[in-house]
C-alpha cells in the first residue's frame, strides 16, 4: 500500500480542513459537536475490523475484538446521543 509520505500528506490536508470546518460551528452547538466528533473517532472500528477478522496470532485477534467492541460503543452511542440532543434545538416560533 501507500508510503508514509502519502499518508502524511493526507494528514496535513485533513487537519487544515478540520480547522476550517469546525471554526464555523456556533457556540450553541459545541456539546453536540463534541459528541458527534466522539462518534467519528469511533472510526477506529474500521482499523480494528481488519485485525479482528484476519488470520492473526491469538493475542492480536483478541485485542482486535476488544477494539471493535470499544469503538462500537463510541460509534453507536455517539451518533445516537448527538441525534437526541440536536432534536432539542428549536427556533422560536412566531
Amino acid at each position, binding site marked *: 500500500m501507500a508510503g508514509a509520505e502519502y499518508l502524511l500528506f493526507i494528514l496535513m490536508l485533513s487537519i487544515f480542513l*478540520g480547522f476550517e470546518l469546525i471554526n464555523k460551528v456556533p457556540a450553541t452547538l459545541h456539546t453536540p*459537536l463534541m459528541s458527534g*466528533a466522539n462518534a467519528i473517532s469511533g472510526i*477506529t472500528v474500521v482499523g480494528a475490523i481488519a485485525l479482528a477478522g484476519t*488470520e492473526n496470532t491469538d493475542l492480536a485477534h483478541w485485542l482486535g475484538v476488544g477494539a471493535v467492541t470499544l469503538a462500537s460503543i463510541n460509534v453507536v452511542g455517539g451518533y445516537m446521543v448527538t441525534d437526541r440532543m440536536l432534536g*432539542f434545538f428549536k427556533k422560536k416560533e412566531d
Partner: protein
Amino acid sequence: MNLELITQLGYVVAAALFIFGLKMLGSPDTARRGNAISSVGMLVAIISALLGQGIVQYEYIIGGMLVGGAIGAIAARSVAMTAMPEMVALFNGFGGAASLLVGWSALAPDAGAFTLTTIMFSILIGGVTLTGSLIAYGKLSETISGAAMTFGGQKIVNSLIVIGVLVSAFMFINNPNDPNWLYAVIGLSLLFGIMAVIPIGGADMPVVISLLNSYSGLAACAAGFAVDNNALIVAGSLVGASGIILTQIMCKAMNRSLTNVLFSGFQSVSTTVTEVEGEIKPISVDDAYYVLEAATNVAIIPGYGMAVAQAQHVVKELMELLENNGCEVNYGIHPVAGRMPGHMNVLLAEADVPYDQLLEMDEINPRMESVDVAIVIGANDVVNPAAREVESSPIYGMPVINVADAKTVFVLKRSMASGFAGIENPLFYKDNTRMLFGDAKESIGGLVREFS
C-alpha cells in the same frame, strides 16, 4: 472486481460524508441532518472494511459490534442532559482504549521502524486518553474529588514518566522482540494519563474534556498510520482539529494559556484576597416578583449551579410567564459556563428554550445597559466584575458577562461561599445587586407561583 479497490473507494465516500456532515453542523437548522449524514459515512466505512481482503472470521467482529453497539445505545438513550460531560468523557476514554488496542494488535514481526513508531504513538496517545478520561469522568461525576490534587515534586514525577515513556518506546522500536519495553510503554502511558488530569480542578474541566476529545481523534489518527488506513487518518484528524479548536476557545474564555490550565490550577492564586466594599443586600421572592413584574427586558445568565439544581425547566416556565407579561427575555451564555463547551445550551434546549434566545457573551454584553433585570443562576466567576476592575484579581482580564451594567441584578445563590475558583466576587456587594438566597429551583419556582 477488485475488493481492495472497492474498500478504498468506500473510504473515500465515507470521508466525504464525514466532511459534509461536519459542515452541516455549522447551523442548528441543518445540524441534525449533518449528524445523520456523518453516521451514514460511518456505515459505509464499516461495510467497506468488512468487504476488505483477508477477513475470514466474521462472527467475532459482529459479536463485538453488537455488544458495543448495545452498550452505546443504552447509554445514549438513558443519559440525562446534565450528565453529558461525564458521558462524553467516558466515550473519549473508550475511543482512546480502542486506539491503544489497535496499535498493540497491529504489531507484526516484520514491522519497520516507521510502523513501530506510529504504533508507539497510537499506544501512548490512546493510553493517556483512556486513563485521563476515566479520571475526568470520576471528577465530573464526583466519584472522586473534583478538587485539584497537587503534591510536591509533581512536575518532576511527571517529567520522569514522560522520559520513561520516550526511552521505553525508543528501546522497543530498536528491540521489537522484547515485549517488556512494550509493556513499559503501555503502563507508563496509562499512568501518565492519570497524573496529567488529577492536578486539574473541576472548573477547568471544559478545557480538559475538549483536549481529551482532541486526543481521542489523534489516537485514531496514529492508529491509522499503524494499520495503513486512510479512513482513520482523515476522520481522526478531523476530530483532533475539532478538539483543539474547542480547547483554544475555552482557554481564551478563561484568559489563560493551555499550559497554565494543565500545570498550575488555581491553588496558588486563591491567597490574594481583596477587600470588597459595600454590603450584601438579600431580597425575598415576593420583592423579586414585584421587580420582575415591572421589567420589560430580562437577561438570564446560567452557570453550572443551574445544572446542579436541575432548574432549567422551571427557568423556562418563568421565561414564558415573563414573555406573556410583555417582557423580552434573553439568555447570556458564557463559553465556560458549565462543565463542557455548550453545556448550558443543551440543557436549555432540552427545556424547550429556542436557540435564538441563547446569546453568546459578545452579543449580550452590548445590550446589558438596556436590561432591567439580569438574573444570575448558579454562575459566579463568569459574571465576576473583578475580572474587569481589580487588577490584582487572579481572573483579571478574563472576559465576563457584564451583568452589573443592568439596572438590577438578581443573584440566585445557595449561600455566600465563593465559586470554584475561590475568588471573592464584588458583584454581590454592588448597589444594584440583590441576593436571592436558597436553592435555585425553589427560588424560581416561588417566582413562577407568584406570577400565576
